[in-house]
């Protein structure tokens, strides 16, 4: 029974679990976790056949490294205490999610929950945040496709998330410099209201700055440091699997409901608003992208539909809970159109941002963040507000760009001169077989043939020697007649 306990605990002034809100946060966390495999396919389909595994592995390995780092010091650096003048939390305070544990007295872990007010367990809040850290790192990988050294990527993921992401999350969501708190930039610029907090607070509902601008800038900086892919501008580097790109986009759209509507912190009306706006902006952005593509190139493409959807998801992220459905249509359409145009910029800059992390996440993140100056139903210019919100949004976007850009540059330079950023030429030419010892597909092998993989002529030394059998036994393998002599494959009698 729920009610009696709840009433008693309520009377005793103890935070109480709200199973509905907590369930929503757990679901949202799972949805956001799924976004990273989704992203892996969105990116993986866009590269050439020879490097799809490497592309997938950059996302999957981020799930490995960041997933561990987050519970160790990541949560603590984001949400526990304050060091370096509010720049970052204290990595030790809640190391290993200390203090969020369940106890007999607090069986749902609400005591130190950042979302205790809506009855969400501190562990559920941490779970949700963990998934954000993972995908932010994974997003970067699109810019460095096909050429970043894999071990360096692993190290980069750990360093970058610790030095750039956790502090930024702290500054924006942990009550730091880029929030509306009393010692924030906004309070400095716009003054403090009666409660002490800034009169105009920057708005970022679900991570336009922390996630998208952040990752977008990092991607651009790394692409710059890495240089262009071999053959860039000469070889066609067409997507090898458009359906995978669209599968990825579908999973991202699905998962993004957790990302945005989960950022409401519970399952109330605000979550519903964020849900609707997320979907609507995405739809509109897809149409916007396709329209621009049609005008510029004569065709509306599948990659365009997928990219447009992602651009819309990015752009609505900062405002999902702050705009009206019609506002979200406008933001989506704008973002789709602008990003479809912006992906052309990199060529002019001579930058090989391979899968357009800059054109989609950085530009889309900026569009969405700044658009709130116009479309925020509480403070936007189109809703009777003045230009303050617009300014606040521009400032937060600019600050995120500088912060992420500068630190990523530093990290990148250090890694370049220590581990090396770029893979060997062999690895770059050969792709997956050289980097991961694997090729993604073996469609030739075994097309309904007795002895499959014939066109690979492979021997497997290891297994063969384990069996003590000669590596290349030439026993006959007739197509469809019963064996005269008993074969080694036969089952024990």
């Amino acid at each position, binding site marked *: 029974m729920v009610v009696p306990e709840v009433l008693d605990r309520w009377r005793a002034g103890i935070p109480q679990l709200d199973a509905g809100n907590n369930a929503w946060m757990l679901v949202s966390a799972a949805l956001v976790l799924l976004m990273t495999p989704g992203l892996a396919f969105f990116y993986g389909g866009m590269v050439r056949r020879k490097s799809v595994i490497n592309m997938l592995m950059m996302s999957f390995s981020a799930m490995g490294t960041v997933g561990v780092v987050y519970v160790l010091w990541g949560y603590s650096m984001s949400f526990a205490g304050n060091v370096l003048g509010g720049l970052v939390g204290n990595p030790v305070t809640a190391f290993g999610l200390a203090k969020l544990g369940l106890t007999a007295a607090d069986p749902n872990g609400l005591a130190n929950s950042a979302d205790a007010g809506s009855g969400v367990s501190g562990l559920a809040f941490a779970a949700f945040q963990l998934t954000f850290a993972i995908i932010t790192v994974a997003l970067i990988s699109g810019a460095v496709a096909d050429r970043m050294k894999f071990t360096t990527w692993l190290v980069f993921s750990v360093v970058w998330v610790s030095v750039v992401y956790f502090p930024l999350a702290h500054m924006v969501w942990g009550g730091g410099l880029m929030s509306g708190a009393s010692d924030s930039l906004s309070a400095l610029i716009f003054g403090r209201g009666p409660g002490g907090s800034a009169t105009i607070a920057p708005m970022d509902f679900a991570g336009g700055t922390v996630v998208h601008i952040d990752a977008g800038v990092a991607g651009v900086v790394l692409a710059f440091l890495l240089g262009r892919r071999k053959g860039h501008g000469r070889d066609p580097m067409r997507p090898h699997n458009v359906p995978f790109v669209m599968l990825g986009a579908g999973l991202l759209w699905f998962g993004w409901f957790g990302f945005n509507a989960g950022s409401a912190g519970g399952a109330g009306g605000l979550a519903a608003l964020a849900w609707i706006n997320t979907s609507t902006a995405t739809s509109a952005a897809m149409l916007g992208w396709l329209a621009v593509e049609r005008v510029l190139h004569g065709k509306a493409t599948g990659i365009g539909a997928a990219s447009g959807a992602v651009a819309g998801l990015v752009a609505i992220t900062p405002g999902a809970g702050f705009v009206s459905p019609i506002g979200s249509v406008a933001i989506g359409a704008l973002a789709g159109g602008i990003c479809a145009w912006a*992906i052309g910029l990199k060529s002019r800059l001579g930058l090989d941002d391979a899968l357009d992390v800059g054109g989609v996440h950085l530009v889309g993140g900026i569009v969405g963040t700044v658009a709130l100056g116009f479309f925020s139903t509480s403070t936007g210019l189109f809703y009777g507000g003045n230009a303050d919100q617009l300014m606040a949004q521009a400032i937060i976007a600019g600050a995120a760009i500088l912060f992420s850009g500068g630190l990523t540059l530093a990290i990148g330079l250090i890694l370049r001169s220590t581990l090396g950023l770029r893979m060997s030429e062999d690895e770059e030419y050969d792709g997956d077989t050289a980097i991961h010892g694997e090729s993604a597909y073996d469609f030739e092998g075994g097309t309904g043939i007795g002895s499959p993989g014939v066109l690979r002529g492979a021997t497997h030394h290891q297994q063969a020697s384990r069996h003590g059998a000669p590596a290349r036994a030439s026993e006959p393998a007739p197509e469809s007649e019963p064996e005269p002599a008993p074969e080694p494959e036969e089952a024990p009698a």
Partner: protein
Amino acid sequence: MNLITAVIKPFKLEDVRTALLAHGVTGMTVCEASGYGRQRGHTEVYRGAEYTVELLPKIRIDLLVADEDTGDVIDAIVRAAWTGKIGDGKVWAVPVATAVRVRTGERDAAAI
């Protein structure tokens, strides 16, 4: 004996095979190929970059025939593969020194 090789438009394979059956030819070996030539390819678009794909899909047929049939078979293929539009392909014949049917070890004419 000759080896006739025909490079044709893919959708003509069925017609060519039917025509060959009518000539009593039942065996042949077929491959996918791509061709450059006078025929133009198409354009693809990928996030703002346009690519011209110049290679066109073709089918390559290899076919052993007896000397006396060579002319007829070539004509039959040409007729069946014809659409009259650029890119219909080529047929050529090369003399064969010897041929064997693996299953029976039969040689030359008997191997066809």
